[in-house]
């Protein structure tokens, strides 16, 4: 049994306006996505800004209500639970955000930010709180001298580690990391990725790792979902993505990425055409307006996500 099973998940955001504050139109943020995550796996989610990555994450962790579809965690459907029924699941699923700044209270020391979570979920008895905080800080590599300091005294990378310590405080089984390293310099990014990699092994974590940086996802994850306009266009194992990728959009993303070696300069792939509006996604394949392989069939009908190999699914009529 997979740890998580996502079935036909849909999210539309109504946009209201006018005198009567009626729903004028809807943002089609997530358009019926299905996939599973096995225990211990790191699943990456990549795609351009606005393709629905964060919305997907929030739907899974029940920070947003789905318009349709279902999320099953360890065999239990959690999409329609009441707040109190959800509570035990909240502890098992944690989220790390892009902006460590925004997720930490500026008036609270980083130590109390973590012990607050421990106390709320009654993770350890009161007298063991301080010791547990110290343990967590050393696990994520934050200097113990700085437990009584405030967030503004920390660098971006250190704040992100505190955010990770907070997420780990409740011994979650599943973590969603939404662009956890995007705001960091490469040297600091490497530190945080290493911490996540160690913790994953140590705590036997399962992870959904959201990023718009294909290089990072390819390096760090076991598999990735490539999203576009709220759809999954390809699900592909990492490791040898350049050889394995089939979808023209995944290939375009790879080709648009500069290689960090001036001897291997290549003409960057430039996609012509515009991204369709999320208010009116095309009826056929969402990639039609920019796809180099487009045919009539692509305009008429959305290609299904078809399995090509183990862990490799592609939604395209032409490949």
């Amino acid at each position: 049994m997979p740890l998580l099973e996502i079935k036909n998940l849909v999210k539309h955001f109504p946009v209201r306006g006018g005198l009567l504050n009626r729903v004028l139109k809807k943002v089609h943020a997530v358009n019926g996505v299905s996939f599973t995550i096995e225990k211990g796996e790191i699943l990456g989610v990549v795609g351009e800004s606005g393709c629905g990555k964060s919305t997907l994450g929030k739907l899974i962790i029940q920070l947003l209500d789905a318009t349709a579809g279902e999320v099953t965690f360890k065999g239990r459907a959690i999409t329609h639970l009441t707040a109190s029924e959800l509570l035990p699941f909240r502890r098992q699923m944690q989220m790390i955000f892009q902006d460590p700044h925004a997720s930490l209270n500026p008036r609270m020391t980083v130590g109390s930010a973590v012990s607050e979570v421990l106390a709320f979920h009654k993770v350890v008895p009161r007298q063991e709180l301080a010791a547990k905080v110290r343990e967590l800080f050393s696990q994520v590599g934050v200097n113990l001298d700085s437990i009584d300091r405030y967030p503004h005294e920390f660098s971006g990378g250190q704040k992100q580690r505190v955010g990770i310590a907070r997420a780990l405080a409740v011994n979650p089984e599943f973590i969603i990391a939404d662009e956890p390293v995007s705001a960091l310099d490469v040297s600091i990014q490497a530190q945080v990725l290493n911490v996540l990699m160690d913790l994953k092994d140590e705590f036997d974590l399962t992870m959904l790792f959201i990023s718009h940086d294909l290089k990072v996802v390819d390096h760090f994850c076991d598999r990735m979902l490539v999203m576009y306009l709220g759809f999954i266009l390809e699900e592909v194992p990492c490791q040898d993505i350049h050889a394995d990728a089939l979808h023209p959009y995944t290939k375009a993303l790879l080709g648009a990425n500069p290689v960090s070696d001036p001897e291997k300069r290549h003409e960057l792939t430039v996609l012509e055409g515009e991204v369709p509006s999320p208010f009116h996604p095309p009826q056929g394949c969402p990639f039609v307006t920019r796809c180099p392989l487009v045919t009539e069939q692509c305009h008429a009908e959305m290609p299904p996500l078809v399995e090509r190999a183990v862990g490799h699914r592609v939604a395209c009529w032409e490949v």
Partner: protein
Amino acid sequence: MPKSEALLTVKNLSVGFHTDKGDVTAIEGVSFEVRVGEILGIVGESGCGKSVTSRSIMRLLPKFNSFIDPQSEINFEGINIARADEKTMRSLRGDRIAMIFQEPMTALNPVFTIGWQLDEALKYHTSLDRRDRIERAVAMLKAVEIPNPRQRYYEYPHQLSGGMRQRVVIAMALCCDPELLIADEPTTALDVTIQAQILRLMDELRKKAETAVILITHDLGVIAQICDRVIVMYAGQIVETADVHSLFKNPQHPYTKALLESIPQTGREHHQTRLPTIEGIVPSLFELPEGCRFQDRCAYKTQECVDREPQLGEEINHRKVRCFFPLEGS
């Protein structure tokens, strides 16, 4: 290809700020030149002084709390920008030296059409009549590959995608054929697909118009892709300069080497391996160590590095490095 004549020569540029906690020197003794038709990259971690350097060249530092050291020189075709008056700067800015910033929205006014904004720039910098200005503006939009330029001319910034907006900003910067374009993180806020468009555009520009470009970024992939020469900055100083090929093949400064190694690599053999890191963080400008500024994070540090501050060395094979023990190539 770049020629060898220098268009801009920066000598000993030091810039400081008055702050609540006292005065700080944000960049110190920065010297470099930009040659006609080349793309010069400036790279380094956040806070190392890239933007202060570029804003000094435009003299766009905040007036109330910044100061340029009087020894500094910024020579642009016979003018010392470091000491130029506002009138001289107005004749240079936008006309001979243009700058684009990280966030395209701040450079565009949301209440006016794209066309109106281009027209203002052209009115200010050229003596063209109205009809020629429109033609010129449409040609500029076309040059940056905006589809339907004649129609887009009458649209507002919010009607364009992020990538198109940044291209409009570039069109505006280029409308007077500047000799030098300074691009401060022009693609950092954009998706790679859009970044690819912008990088291609800058590359063509350099080839066709021989515009010199200073490209500021913290992305070494971008540097590898289009720069000719590179300046690496650390804690307000230049620590290494070299042509892009030598820099990537044989970084001489321990910081450059560590930066290059911390980039995730693709391919089976690298998959899910631990990344080499630079432990620690950039020192605060208020707590700079004596000796080398990189010492706390350096794997090659010796007592000498603690006792004395290394200087940016003499140029050897067109390279300079600020380290007592420059690394040998493999």
